[in-house]
């Protein structure tokens, strides 16, 4: 009924090719097909933001894109942020400011903040909150996440 289609995409600089059922979401392709389990799945309805990744330069909910739709795309997931063992400045700021507790929301927070800081290098706390309003966190109460993003912004400007 639903024949498999061959898809190929570049994720964090590596090319992945596989045959997929059309109904396979990009999130499941990345997690199960590519073994990149840093992209988390919370709600599978676009609300929680845990699955946020960057596709062709923009954040998307990986739970709301089909893998077949991403054929030919260039993707960055949370695994693509660090350089080897070296955290990038945003990750470093989350670590330094207690921007995570259990870490479930963190990959999505990092990807949303990555896109956001590129367009808004000098954000206010209010703007950071609006940007992250689409990423739910059950642990931190958000204050330390906002602090982390503001700290990263400052370091990135320096």
């Amino acid at each position: 009924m639903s024949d498999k289609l061959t898809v190929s995409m570049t994720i964090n600089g590596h090319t992945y090719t596989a045959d997929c059922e059309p109904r396979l979401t990009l999130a499941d392709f990345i997690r199960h097909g590519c073994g990149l389990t840093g992209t988390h799945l919370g709600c599978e309805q676009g609300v929680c933001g845990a699955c946020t990744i960057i596709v062709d330069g923009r954040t998307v909910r990986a739970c709301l894109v089909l893998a077949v739709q991403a054929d030919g795309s260039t993707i960055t997931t949370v695994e693509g942020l660090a350089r080897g063992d070296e955290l990038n400045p945003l990750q470093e700021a989350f670590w330094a400011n207690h921007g995570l507790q259990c870490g479930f929301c963190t990959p999505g927070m990092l990807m949303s903040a990555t896109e956001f800081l590129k367009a808004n290098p000098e954000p206010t706390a209010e703007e950071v909150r609006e940007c992250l309003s689409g990423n739910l966190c059950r642990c931190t109460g958000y204050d330390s996440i906002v602090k982390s993003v503001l700290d990263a912004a400052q370091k990135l400007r320096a």
Partner: protein
Amino acid sequence: MKPPPVKYARAGDVQEAIALLTEHGSDAKVLAGGQSLIPLMNFRLARPSILIDINRVRELDYVREDNGTLAIGAMTRQRDVETSSVAAASVPLLPEVLRHVGHITNRNRGTVGGSLAHADPAAELPALVTGLGGELVVQGPNGVRTIPAEDFFMSTFTTALEPDEVLIGVRLPRLPGGTGVAVEELARRHGDFAIVAAMAAVHLAPDRSVDLVRLAVSGVDSVPVRLHAAEDALTGGRPSAEAIEAAAATVADAIHPADDVHAPASYRRDMAQLLVKRVAKAALERSETKS
């Protein structure tokens, strides 16, 4: 949850999308930004037999001025309209309204056409297009037809689109320079669907009398509602608190809110009235400062 089994076809242009819809009948669904359709499939509330992906139909991705109207292609991402200087100059209500549609990541993917074709009665874009007297342009096997917004939205999740038709774009009349605009929304959190949303555009003549009013609300009926009586109550005279009160007094008769888990109908009615007053006042103030 995961989507049920489904077939997939990618349309290269509008003609191909229509041919695929014609071939597969009413079990086929157009896939635009997927921000409503994929959640419905993940919950198994929608089970199309085949998805017709129009994401690579480049001819439907545009924002342009065209003879006094702003024309937007159905596949234009909501975020691209929100950040378009052409859209902001022509219909300044658009960026204000789009900021309330989900979150940036949803708007990066969600399309103008998808929001209009989906026709959620709480959604902001259908209310904007209805309030401004916009037109929907649809194409099917028999060609192109243009439908006024008030005829396009028929009921909850129901539009005048036939199963073999594709929504190709929307046209909005340009708002004259100096028009003041305002949006107010009651929602549980930023980015949530509105419980009630209200929006206004107001323009003043050189003698400072009100010569153009557009008012719309969402979340208070099975379709978005343009508030014609309230517009009439505000048009013609000088802006005044009395005129705003008179306009707000007409709102209750124009809407048919329902009870649901978020709010009882009576509360939605009261809030619609209150938000209409607020947006009318704010839009008037902004139009005065600009003219």
